[in-house]
């Protein structure tokens, strides 16, 4: 690969790292140019190598699979009152402007496929708005992909801080309601109650309505409630980053327990350290596409390089890292034996 970018310092003294938004891509300096040339050669080489290879066929044991994503893509179609701006016809534009209604198509994920085996813990990284959360929503079945399907041994459960709670109810009632909404019986909910309270650390304010809680307290409670289930396939969304140090330590213990029990874990995080520590495989999603899928060390290194280029406003270099990584991606295609494509609900 190219030289590590972290150690790279531009020669031009007035090259500001985060200032003036350049209208063009930054003019490459001598070193920059070298960098790019090097990458370009690499780019060519790989692309030639890629076209020659024939697809590798692999047979997987079905008891080994936890999740199979088959050509899933997502385009959100949402109502938007400013959609008339994109309308080309003069008449329809005026009509939409007056009624203030219209559909906006927001592409969130491009066609992607991958297979996750039992016992794998998969990290998911990507910059903001890259489509990580959309992928997680698809995996949990909250929304249906525009094309393609998601298959799993059981419905994956998301652990996050977005579990909905009722503002007027007290913390105690919210715990019970949340547990019941996740499908626990009243008996199981009562058993989990002490664990949830202990994890949230909110013993003193359990009888107050939720609207009196600070946002930190509320998200602690939400997270604690979410951990009351022991799912088979677990998705953790940025959960480790909430709360103070004390809460984080407690969470980590509980999360380790849940992860031990779960057959397969997805961890969405911006903390590359956590990802490298906990995951055996990393998916990098960028601009709505699966960019890399593989060894945590290598993927996080590419990701770091990419974000560093972007934060320094070196768009071309970032683009090159993007292309180069994409070249290495092993595109997977899922094929089911005839007649075994799953249809039933989990």
């Amino acid at each position, binding site marked *: 690969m190219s030289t590590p970018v972290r150690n790279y310092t531009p020669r031009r003294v007035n090259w500001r790292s985060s200032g003036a938004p350049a209208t063009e891509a930054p003019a490459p300096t001598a070193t920059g140019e070298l960098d790019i040339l090097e990458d*370009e050669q690499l780019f060519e080489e790989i692309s030639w190598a890629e076209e020659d290879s024939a697809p590798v066929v692999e047979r997987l044991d079905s008891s080994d699979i936890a999740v*199979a994503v088959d050509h899933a893509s997502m385009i959100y179609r949402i109502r938007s009152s400013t959609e008339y701006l994109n309308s080309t016809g003069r008449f329809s534009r005026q009509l939409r402007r007056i009624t203030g209604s219209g559909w906006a198509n927001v592409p969130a994920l491009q066609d992607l496929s991958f297979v996750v085996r039992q016992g794998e813990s998969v990290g998911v990284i990507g910059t903001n708005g890259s489509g990580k959360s959309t992928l997680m*929503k698809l995996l949990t079945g909250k929304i249906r992909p525009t094309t393609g399907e998601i298959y799993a041994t059981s419905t994956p459960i998301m652990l996050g801080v977005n579990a909905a709670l009722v503002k007027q109810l007290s913390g105690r009632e919210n715990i019970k309601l949340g547990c019941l909404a996740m499908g626990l019986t009243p008996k199981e909910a009562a058993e989990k109650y002490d664990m949830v309270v202990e994890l949230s650390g909110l013993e003193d304010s359990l009888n107050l309505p939720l609207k009196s809680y600070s946002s930190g307290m509320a998200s602690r409670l939400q997270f604690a409630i979410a951990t009351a289930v022991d799912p088979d396939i677990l998705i953790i969304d940025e959960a480790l980053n909430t709360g103070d140090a004390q809460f984080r330590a407690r969470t980590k213990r509980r999360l380790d327990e849940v992860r031990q029990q779960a057959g397969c874990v997805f961890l969405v995080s911006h903390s590359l350290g956590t990802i490298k520590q906990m995951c055996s495989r990393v998916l990098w999603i960028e601009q709505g596409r699966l960019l890399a899928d593989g060894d945590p060390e290598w993927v996080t290194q590419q990701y770091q390089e990419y974000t560093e280029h972007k934060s320094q406003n070196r*768009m071309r270099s970032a*683009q090159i890292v993007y292309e180069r990584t994409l070249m290495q991606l092993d595109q997977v*295609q899922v*094929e089911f034996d005839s007649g075994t494509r*799953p249809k039933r609900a989990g």
Partner: protein
Amino acid sequence: MATPTAERSAAPTHVDEPRQAGHVVQLDGSSLVRVGARPRLLDYVQRLWAFRHFIIYDSHSKVQTANSNDAMGRVWMVVNPILSGLAYFLVFGLLLDLSRGISNFIGYLIIGVFMFRYTTSAVSSGASSMVSNQSVVQAFNFPRASLPFAINVRELFANVPMLIVMALLVITIGDIPLADTPPTPVSVDWLWLFIFPVLALNFLLSTGLGMLLARAVSAYTDVKHMISFGMRIWFYTSAVFFTVDRFAGSPGGEYIEFVMYHNPMFCVLDIIRSTWLYGEMADPYRWVVLTVSSVSIFIIGFLVFWHGEEKYGRER
């Protein structure tokens, strides 16, 4: 090599066609399930039954907190219908003088207004259950029909004080004579117990309508505007403050009567009024119409709602 795009992002400027997959994975899918798929009808009913504790707890807690921001709290559950009954009495009883020919007009009006208020709020909140609980729908995996059910159970709980007030008002002031109509004395007897089967059928009716409309509102929120309009029309045409006898003899009167007699809401009101106010059994035909229509609306509503199970979680 890619050129910088207009918005200066490192987005792939060439949107390449899906490349030839370099890796084909073959597997036997019989042990997998499709995530988020709609269960078969019987499974769905079973799941719904498993979530009954959630339905009851949710409705119970929402009743308790419904008026928690008001200084008078739950007193409003009782005061609200009384005030609206008073308003209708002023307008229709005194100003428009529709009470002519109706014995026990005050009781007649109280039963109509109270029961209709209950049904209206149950149907319209059931209809918006998917849209207004978007965050809950997206956060948890539960059979979505639990929400319209929970809302209807909630309305039932919330209206227990209203029903008690209704009974008390009918007993105390229901038979006060107005102007020229002879009153029929109201007395409490075993016939009053018919309120329970009527409430049960009314529950099926409002739940079924709620589920039917919830699917429509979730697809097109515009329907919400039509619901309040439709409920108002239904209110004015269900003989809440006049009698069907008014139309007897007028041109087209028999058609109006025919429509009235097949309106389930009119049947609800008529059965309660006959048994509570006039101490007699209602026309058996009312029972037939009410039972058939509420059960069939419930079944249709449930099927329609179940059929859209996968669509309620989408962004809007």
